[in-house]
């Protein structure tokens, strides 16, 4: 289950720096220097993260971002431009202000991909569990770890319930069954 990143930067050097920094973590990524190449890449596969470098871009061209499918977008911009961008349709995106900080961009990408990976894993596990349940092969399928977690939860809950219903020790100390029987 690989995750992908599209980097758009009209500046070849900045683009390459981001690409190489992300490649260091073995994350699948592709660098595009034009809008048409971004569109071509998106047609092939919808990325999990899009990094958009606004350096050397015309403001009017930023409308292009709205055409992209719903992925998490990281926008690199000058600090003074961020407030303007936040007042547009791009307000839900992540902004990283200049100076250019590739290590910070990488940390953002990693955090986004990790959360996406967890979501994807949870969704696929759930669907497998449901499909297995419908075909009656619950214990034979690959969702065995999920079943184990559920089982551990049930057993844990049962133990907790047993312990919480034990008689109070302090009360037992004053409990005198013989004397009580004499009454």
């Amino acid at each position, binding site marked *: 289950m690989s995750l992908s990143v599209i980097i758009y930067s009209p*500046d070849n*050097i900045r683009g390459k*720096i981001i690409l*190489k920094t992300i490649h260091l973590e073995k994350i699948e990524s592709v660098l595009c220097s034009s809008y048409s190449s971004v569109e071509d890449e998106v047609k092939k596969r919808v990325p999990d993260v899009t990094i958009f470098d606004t350096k050397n871009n015309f403001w009017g061209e930023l409308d292009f971002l709205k055409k992209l499918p719903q992925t998490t977008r990281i926008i690199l911009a000058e600090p003074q431009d961020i407030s303007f961008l936040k007042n547009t349709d791009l307000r839900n995106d992540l902004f990283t202000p*200049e*100076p*250019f900080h590739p290590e*910070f961009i990488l940390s953002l990408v990693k955090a986004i991909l990790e959360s996406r990976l967890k979501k994807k894993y949870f969704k696929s596990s759930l669907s497998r569990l449901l499909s297995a349940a419908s075909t009656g092969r619950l214990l034979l399928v690959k969702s065995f770890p999920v079943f184990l977690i559920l089982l551990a939860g049930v057993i844990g809950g049962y133990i907790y319930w047993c312990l919480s219903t034990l008689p109070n020790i302090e009360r037992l100390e004053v409990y005198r069954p013989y004397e009580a029987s004499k009454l």
Partner: protein
Amino acid sequence: MASGLLNPNEDEGIEVIKQIINSVFNRAQKIDEVICFCVPGEPVDNSASTVFHESVIKMHLKSLGYSPIPVNEGLAVVLSELAGNNFTGIVISIGGGMCNVCFSYLSVPVITFSIQKGGDYIDLMVGKAAGESATKIKMIKEVELDLTIAPRNKVETGPHIFYDDLFFTLIQTMQKVFGSTDKMPRISSDLPLVLSGGSIMPNGCKTKFEQAMKDVNLPVKISDIVIAEKPLYATAKGSLKMAMEEGKM
């Protein structure tokens, strides 16, 4: 050659360079065989351009059947010397006609430039000051110069002064160029600085450079200053590495 580039005043200069190349290489053994050749960065202290120099060599290599790829001199040294640091750091190649500087981040040449001052400048200036020929000064510099020893005469004093001058110019230019670019990425770790080229070989050069760097503020912090394993061959080694990588593709 003049100041690290083909000399426009020498009519036979191009032919001489071609003959030198022919004496080193045969024709390509297969069609479009990759060959990397080293080119200097654009000089920032002069209006000279490297385009003519690069094109002449490229055209000749193409005529020999090769697929030539120019490699920046500084980047070649990065590929040769900074493999252990993810090809990230600063390299200064101090040659005869030029000093080439490259700041590389993960092998991306973020900043490359050159200044048209180098070993030849030191020879010329010391020669003028001491009343000797530049060639004689060059011989002395290559054989017996030791910058750790206090100079005893005019000929020995000259290199001390002009090495200081060269390093001062170089570092000032680095400060200016590094400080004025918007391409410089913010890096949390300190970076190594590698010195290479023939003019860095006299004993004591590294110490002199370290002293010149003491009070300098660059946008990146320097962890240590080292001299290339083989200062004369680092550029060739890096170009070869590049050619081998390109040849695989």
